[in-house]
């Protein structure tokens, strides 16, 4: 991330160390993770020890020290989705992608995460991919849904 960009983010928050979480979240949104060099820079500029930044980055679910997938799959594990069978859908995704929740595929194409309630309970079980909602999901529908986001499908469309 360019120094100029980091400065812009800091300025948005008045370079106030109390707003460090907001700053980190903006960077996470831009870069899909928190690059080490960016944290080093923030540590110096905001006069915050690296331990504090590392602590924040590992405490909050929304922050990650490793790049997220190009397509982030969020399986809603809210109670309503759970009682409608969300666990089976997660199992199928894990087996299909060969990764566990919280991980990213080796080609960085897909990241899989569980989230707690996206608030679309009427459509449960819900899977969100890149912010797009897939409702009334089932283990059966998983493969078809994934095809939409795989490179091969896009190439075929072209």
């Amino acid at each position: 991330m360019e120094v100029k960009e980091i400065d812009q983010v800091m300025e948005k928050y008045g370079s106030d160390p109390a707003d460090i979480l907001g700053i980190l979240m903006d960077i996470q949104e831009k870069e899909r993770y928190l690059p080490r060099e960016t944290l080093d820079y923030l540590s110096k500029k905001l006069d915050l020890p690296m331990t504090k930044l590392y602590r924040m980055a590992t405490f909050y679910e929304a922050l990650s020290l490793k790049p997220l997938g190009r397509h982030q799959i969020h399986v809603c594990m809210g109670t309503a989705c759970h009682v409608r069978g969300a666990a089976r859908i997660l199992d199928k995704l894990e087996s299909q992608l060969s990764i566990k929740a919280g991980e990213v595929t080796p080609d960085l194409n897909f990241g899989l995460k569980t989230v707690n309630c996206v608030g679309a309970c009427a459509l449960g079980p819900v899977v969100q991919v890149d912010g797009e909602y897939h409702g009334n999901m089932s283990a059966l529908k998983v493969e078809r849904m994934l095809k939409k986001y795989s490179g091969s499908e896009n190439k075929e469309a072209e």
Partner: protein
Amino acid sequence: MVNITIDGQQFQAAEGQNVLQAALDNGIEIPHLCYHENLSSYGGCRLCLVEITRGQRTTLTTSCTYPCLEGIVVRTDTPEVLKARRLVMELLLPLAPEAPQIQALAREMGISEQRFTEEEADNCIRCGLCTRACTEMVGAQAITFSGRGYRRAVESPFGEEAVDCIGCGTCVYICPTGCIEMLDRGTQRTLPKWKRTLELKKCTKCGWPYIPFAQIEFARQRGQEPPAADWFDLCPNCR
């Protein structure tokens, strides 16, 4: 000063001082692991539980975080308190299988069998004394808690070499389980848990590599000038 009662006995304590310290000052033992009188109170280990009555309300709470207020009545040994402490200790025990102090404390509390097991126990009980000492006493701020819940651990940032660590050894001394090692070999000091290696300065008289250069530099950077420019040339024994 305020008047407080502990186990039926009246004491005077400084207002606002924590109940645990007030008890210890008056010779009353309350088991504790994450408390140190020179550090801020944390209230994490939950061993120092006592029953405190203030006005109409009685609560079971940690004595290290509760302030001495006028008229509070403290009980350190009710059956409920002892049962609570015992169960808390049962939960801590599996984390520190090779920590003699913890094992001894458990036996003292009447725990004979271990009902829970931990597969990869690292002997760290997450008391936070090392991190607080590093931040509050020393000021190096080299190590930290990371993660959340049962995944919470103490480590150096990114799990790599703790570059801000000055090798003072405070964390080693303050740790109640002894899970932090500090090894001096020749002119090198290593703290494996923080993946830290430091060079030691030799005493010009006896040749003992006795202090990390980093520690001297750290003190200087903070404006802590030694009594003389060559103060650190001699080790404490030779001074």
